């Protein structure tokens, strides 16, 4: 943050001795958080005159009055900003006094270059919730109440600056009472752009068996539907959720069948009684180290928690995994529904599996008609869909698995000045990232670009995201894999394009989040499912030395055949076969895995190995293979199932695996590593010890073996990478057991913080790497905006 220069305005003759006028220019999350009203209140309290207004870049503010109160204003502005406000830049200058009377909120200034602080949608705040529950309040039970501190933002925004007339709320003119609050300096809804009440705001209604009803009856009918074991589609903050009773196995099975979501665990939303919001959630799940506030704050993410066994959630919810994705109602609408249902509900985004979340009643009726038995709808237009965010905790700190509602598109700091590059991510878990000088705005999770509709959604977002932020794209950054849908889209744009190696982008993202300066380097583990290497081969278990603009592959897991390409990722048994064959012989393979294939399948697998199909070094696939050998997981019914089951199986008494062998790569091809980490001793060890004790001991032992291998590889790497800081990026670090093991041994290990370690963080890394490459091309030195850290 810049230090204000603190200079005071000159004293003008006749204006009174000691009278000063200060001008503030503020950037950061200062719009949509009740910032202007709080300035007005503070000025009024201190007897100062002046004005405040939103600008496309932030907030402009001038105050005038006696020197003491003016200084006091400046101090409190910095120290007592509204809870959600965060300054990125705080400039204060003294200017000439003008003798102004009174304080006003001036109309927003438009047209100039916006600097892109778009707020995410915010869960209903405690003040609004208490009104909601107060029978005497005029917003009692009104599901769309909001204020300067909560309500929709990103999903209803048409452009900056943030004013009601540039949101989809403009179609709801304020009634006299709301208008009064909006204009009243003393009211907490003073300039609350999304404010609404039953008289003037959006309405809720129910469509389903028995026709269409609105108001309280709508909620009653919706709740009844859920209690009866049927499936309800709820149009919420950022799109549709599909909801059913989480304690009713039949209902959950039916939801899975209709949504075609076979086995992926489902999130659960719990009722939040006013007396103790977490009281019901805690009956079913173990919040452990997660602070209570995380469940009730403006973000309200889905938190992956250990499920308490035998508590009554249907087994079909978690499908045998010991966790539950738990959260509390995100808005008053959900709260009201859950109050009436009185039981935890499965809550999953309203779409067909693998497609983007649906956002309008029309779309919902068309696409969810065969999934839902009834619809709880509203008429507040959602301009862009936003999924729920998902987090989990590992070793006392939060890790973001999916960054969406409540978090995106908030910017992440850039460690050096970045040009307006749009990072496009990869193929899976795509999120956009827009370079904005000293920060990068990272958009919400858009999902996997596999279906036609997610691709369309991607194109729309990629087109509008920079414009929404007021940025003009100078270049694009995409993955080096030419077959990714995002890369293909980039190719057709006719703009300067930087293709960034997948695993380099993962590590650059970690470096950037850690604030490492432009010339820094790390010794990193880039461990994930799959990514195209700079040598055209498939990587995914790499030891790398890299900076923002450079990257060298030092080590990798010993390559193994990927039998059937992408099909191998769906069938851990194929990986297991390749691993066992590499570690032993055909006879053993047959003995160990023969029964997991038909005769012809088995023969064909061996033929594929002989035909030298493509190889990979992916740890994600190694996890698949070991999960098959240790637990018998033959197929992934959803992405990452086998690795998740292996993590879940870990006991507290790991057996010690033999160390991985480090092999010198005697004949490195260009892009080939200096050493291989040979996992074959682990395969032989697992084969010898299977069935002798608890499979959980082997599962835990495998995780520990990986930690040891990580360290062994890093120690060897030190020969070429000296004392560089250690970093870890890539989807494998969603595995809390693996991450905790590594952090125990390397307390200073740099990992993802605000961004997901998985491909959701790629775009941010792509922006940083392309920025570094662009600097290198232009020959200009990379400057650190805030001095070198």
């Amino acid at each position, binding site marked *: 943050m810049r230090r204000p220069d603190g200079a005071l305005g000159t004293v003008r003759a006749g204006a009174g001795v000691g009278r000063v006028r200060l001008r503030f220019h503020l950037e950061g999350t200062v719009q949509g958080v009740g910032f202007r009203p709080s300035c007005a209140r503070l000025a009024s309290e201190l007897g100062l005159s002046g004005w405040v207004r939103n600008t496309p870049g932030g907030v402009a503010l001038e105050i005038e009055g006696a020197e003491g109160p003016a200084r006091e204003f400046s101090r409190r502005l910095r120290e007592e900003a509204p809870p959600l406000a965060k300054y990125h830049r705080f400039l204060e200058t003294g200017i000439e006094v003008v003798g102004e009377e009174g304080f006003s909120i001036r109309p927003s200034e438009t047209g100039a270059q916006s600097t892109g602080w778009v707020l995410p949608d915010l869960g209903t705040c405690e003040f609004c919730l208490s009104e909601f529950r107060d029978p005497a309040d005029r917003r009692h039970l009104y599901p769309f109440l909001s204020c300067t501190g909560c309500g929709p933002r990103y999903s209803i925004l048409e452009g900056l600056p943030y004013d009601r007339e540039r949101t989809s709320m403009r179609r709801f003119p304020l009634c006299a009472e709301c208008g009064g609050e909006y204009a009243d300096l003393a009211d907490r809804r003073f300039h609350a752009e999304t404010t609404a009440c039953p008289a003037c705001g959006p309405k809720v209604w129910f469509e389903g068996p028995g026709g269409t009803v609105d108001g309280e009856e709508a909620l009653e009918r919706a709740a009844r539907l859920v209690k009866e074991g049927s499936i309800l589609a709820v149009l919420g903050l950022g799109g549709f959720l599909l909801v059913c009773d989480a304690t009713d196995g039949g209902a959950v099975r039916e939801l899975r069948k209709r949504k075609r979501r076979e086995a992926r665990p489902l999130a659960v939303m719990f009722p939040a009684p006013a007396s103790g919001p977490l009281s019901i959630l805690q009956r079913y799940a173990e919040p452990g180290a997660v602070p209570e506030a995380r469940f009730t704050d403006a973000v309200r993410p889905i938190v992956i928690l250990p499920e308490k066994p035998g508590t009554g959630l249907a087994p079909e919810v978690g499908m045998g995994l010991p966790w539950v994705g738990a959260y509390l109602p995100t808005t008053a609408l959900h709260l009201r529904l859950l109050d009436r249902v009185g039981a935890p509900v499965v809550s999953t985004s309203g779409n067909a599996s693998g497609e983007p979340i649906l956002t309008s009643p029309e779309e919902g009726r068309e696409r969810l008609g065969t999934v839902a038995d009834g619809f709880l709808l509203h008429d507040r237009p959602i301009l862009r869909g936003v999924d729920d965010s998902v987090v989990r905790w590992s070793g006392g700190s939060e890790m973001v698995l999916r960054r969406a509602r409540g978090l995106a598109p908030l910017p992440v700091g850039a460690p050096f000045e970045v040009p307006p590059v749009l990072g496009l991510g990869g193929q899976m878990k795509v999120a956009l990232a827009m370079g904005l000088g000293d920060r990068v705005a990272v958009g919400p999770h858009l999902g996997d670009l596999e279906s036609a509709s997610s691709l369309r959604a991607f194109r729309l977002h990629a087109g509008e995201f920079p414009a929404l932020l007021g940025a003009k794209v100078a270049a694009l950054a995409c993955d080096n894999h030419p077959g990714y849908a995002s890369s293909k889209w980039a190719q057709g744009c006719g703009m300067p394009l930087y293709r960034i190696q997948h695993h380099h982008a993962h590590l650059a993202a970690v470096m950037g989040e850690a604030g490492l300066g432009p010339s820094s380097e790390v010794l990193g583990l880039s461990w994930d499912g799959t990514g195209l290497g700079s040598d055209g081969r498939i990587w995914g278990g790499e030891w790398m030395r890299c900076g923002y603009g450079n990257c060298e592959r030092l080590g990798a897991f010993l390559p193994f055949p990927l039998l059937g390409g992408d099909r191998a990722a769906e069938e851990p048994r194929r990986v297991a076969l390749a691993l066992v064959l590499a570690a032993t012989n055909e006879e053993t393979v047959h003995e160990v895995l023969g029964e997991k294939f038909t005769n*012809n399948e088995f023969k064909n697998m061996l*033929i594929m190995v002989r035909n030298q199909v493509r190889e990979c070094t992916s740890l994600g696939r190694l996890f698949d293979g070991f999960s098959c050998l240790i637990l018998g997981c033959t197929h992934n019914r959803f992405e990452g199932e086998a690795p998740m089951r292996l993590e879940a199986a870990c006991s507290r008494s790991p057996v010690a695996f033999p160390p991985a062998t480090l092999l010198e790569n005697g004949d490195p091809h260009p892009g080939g590593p200096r050493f291989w980490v040979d996992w074959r001793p682990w395969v032989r060890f697992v084969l010898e010890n299977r069935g002798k004790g608890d499979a959980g001991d082997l599962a835990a032992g495998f995780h520990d073996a990986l930690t040891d291998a990580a360290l062994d590889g890093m120690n060897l790497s030190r020969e070429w990478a000296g004392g560089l800081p250690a970093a870890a990026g890539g989807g494998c670090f969603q595995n809390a057991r693996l991450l905790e093991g590594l952090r125990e041994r390397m307390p200073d290990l740099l990992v993802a913080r605000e961004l997901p370690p998985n491909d959701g963080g790629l775009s941010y890394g792509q922006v940083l790497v392309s920025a570094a490459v662009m600097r290198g091309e232009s020959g200009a030195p990379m400057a650190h905006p805030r001095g070198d850290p």
Partner: protein
Amino acid sequence: MTGATIRLDHGNGGRWTRELVEGIFLRAQGKGAGAALLDAAPLRLEGGRWAFTTDGFVVSPPVFPGGTIGSLAVHGTCNDLAVMGARPRFASSSFILEEGLRTDLLERVVQDMARAAVEAGLALVAGDTKVVEKGRGDGLYIAMSGLGEVPAGRDPMPGNIGPGDAWLVSGPVGDHGAAIVAARGDYALDAPIASDSANLSPLVEALFERVSTVQFLRDATRGGLAQVIVEASGAAGLGAVLEEAAIPVRPAVEGLCDILGFDPLYLACEGRLVACVPWDAASEALDSLRGHPLGVGSAVIGRVAGGREVVLRTRVGGERLLEELEEDPVPRIC
């Protein structure tokens, strides 16, 4: 005598070459050793429009279930002509032989080619043979050019394609690609897979006989059915919606694709006609295709749409965008 294997001398232009040509090529066409060896074939072409095409054949292995590189060359050439609405008439072939090639294999290929040509009514009027050193070629390659006559009123071009038109395919897709892969890799199959290699000209004639408004025709070769429709849609500036459930694929082909991770929609065919006709002519077109032995497995698989996306509606109700073939799963397929 030609000997058991090809020698470099077979390409020297002298006695060895003459003996090879007489002993294998001319004999296959039923021509005696005395047939005049001219440098070019004089042709008398009359009026009308003619279509001219050329193609190289490098398939490995040269003999596969359902055909050889010889019949494939004839079928490929005929099909390139037929989908332009032309009736195949004349062709030339040029053989590149690798030193050491077994002559009985060559003989089989050449016999197969001659037979296929006779069946197609295609006159092989010119030919050439060259030999390259061992290691400089993979057995044998064939280059073939063909000339066909286009009857009046036929003009199947992508520009004719209009929104709402129907897309048809004349049988199960991916057979050729799967047969080659299976033969090459020696994979174990649940049921035998043979190449669909065939001359589509009679099928095209049957179609034109009953449907005068054929908008566009293409034989699905490399890149398979998907590549044909993506390319044609792109050229027409339109999109398409295809129904996965309507696209015929043999279970054995599906099974092999599942093992290898291939998509049958992108797997090569050598005897499948892809046709676009106006929607109201679709059932007439389907009947005429199904009425011919080469088209019994024909199906209407989708429709032309506005926009520029080729969308596949999957069996489970999802939508997938079909795009140009990115990475050829099976090189050297034809």
